[in-house]
């Protein structure tokens, strides 16, 4: 979580007045399991990238490579692991 503002610093009405700030809200600590990718099995098909509901799969579009996960925002839902055609992604416990 970024530094929390005080009540007097907030916009009246509780509205959000700047666009594109969802990435400031780090939801990674909601997770109980995190995805791990085995690059020996990964074929860089980008299925995980397309299915991820939190845009938390990092890719290099120029190189056409899957690069891992954005763990600050990944909520650990496991969709990437279930959709992976090569079973290259495993969900592992945070503890």
């Amino acid at each position, binding site marked *: 979580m970024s530094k929390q503002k005080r*009540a007097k610093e907030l916009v009246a*009405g*509780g*509205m959000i007045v700047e666009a594109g700030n969802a990435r400031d809200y780090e939801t990674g600590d909601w997770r109980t399991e995190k995805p791990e990718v085995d690059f020996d099995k990964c074929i860089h098909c980008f299925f995980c990238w397309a299915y991820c509901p939190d845009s938390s799969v990092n890719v290099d579009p120029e190189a056409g490579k899957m690069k891992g996960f954005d763990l600050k925002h990944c909520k650990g839902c496991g969709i990437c692991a279930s959709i992976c055609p090569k079973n290259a992604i495993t969900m592992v416990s945070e503890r």
Partner: protein
Amino acid sequence: MAKVIGLNGNAAVANAMRQINPHVVAAYPITPQTDCVERFAEFVADGRVDTEFVTVESEHSAMSACVGAAAAGGRVMTATSANGLALMWEIVYIAASMRLPIVMMVANRALSGNINIHCDHSDTMGARDAGWLQLFSENAQEAYDNTIMAIKIAEDMSVRLPVMVTQDGFIISHALECVELLEDEEVQKFIGPYKERYPMLDLKNPVTYGPLDLFDYYFEHKWSQIDAIDHCLPVIEKVSAEYGKLSGRNYELLESYKLDDAEVGIVALGSTCGTAKEAVDRMREAGKKVGLLKVRCFRPFPTEQVIKTLSPLKGVAVLDRSATFGGFGGPVFTEIRSALYDAPERPLVIDFLYGLGGRDIFMEDIEMAHSRIEGVVKKGRIDTHVDFLGLRE
């Protein structure tokens, strides 16, 4: 030049709405408010206003449409009564939370059940914690004047909160009175053009209204709402003073009637104040030192002003036109008595529930309340804190 015409309370407010010419009105008919919105719909049909009039399928939708239109950046008004207000409940809170300056006329009517279409204050008193400002009107003239002032109060940049303007159902809403209207241009000049604040239709500056707000920020947002409504009283006073200069009719947060040298006071809201003034006059003629405190502004509650006005008295009888089941007296009593608790000298305060479901209140009832508080003062002790007027027990 102002003109005086015969109007009932609903027509007076409909005319205020016509002169205000809001961008959007979304409303659903309910007795006794229907007559007001019907008249406004005629103004729309006759092309006398530019308003987008949204006919909706319920009050929940009416207030939802109002919230949407106000968030989009429009001047928005509506009206309702009783069960209609109850059906709006969820969105009534949201309108205040989002700081949307919607103005709503409420023709006070008893909440069901049993079903009853006549006046009491159970509808708006139930909504007293919703975050809206609440201005009560004694007659059709005040309902008209309060509606125009409400626009300017709600839209003040330091307020930006919705305002309820009430008038007693049927007693005011359907009774023909002489009402002095301002000229259309005077009203427009007084309220000024609508000033937007983060309008959703400003596509270059996108904003999000009503996002998920959990344990990390919800409390801070509620504090800012509490802080905002707590600081509204000076704005209400300023706007009322400006309106007084324009119209010659002066309004304060509280109206003191013959309280200066009084020993006991009656406290009331709405049309009962008219009856109470007559009763005070009659009791004064009989040598009784009694006066009336009319509460015009119930939310925010003018605590300091109440203390200043009532603490010199020996006794106060509060008249409550709604019940709080299982509570300690009605909502007005609770506020008044609580405000006076810390006053170095304070009067004895008793409560009377009266007029539920439109039961008439007579001058004799108010004289009865007076003689009861007079007795309490003489005895120096309260035996019954909460009693009833005009009830067959």
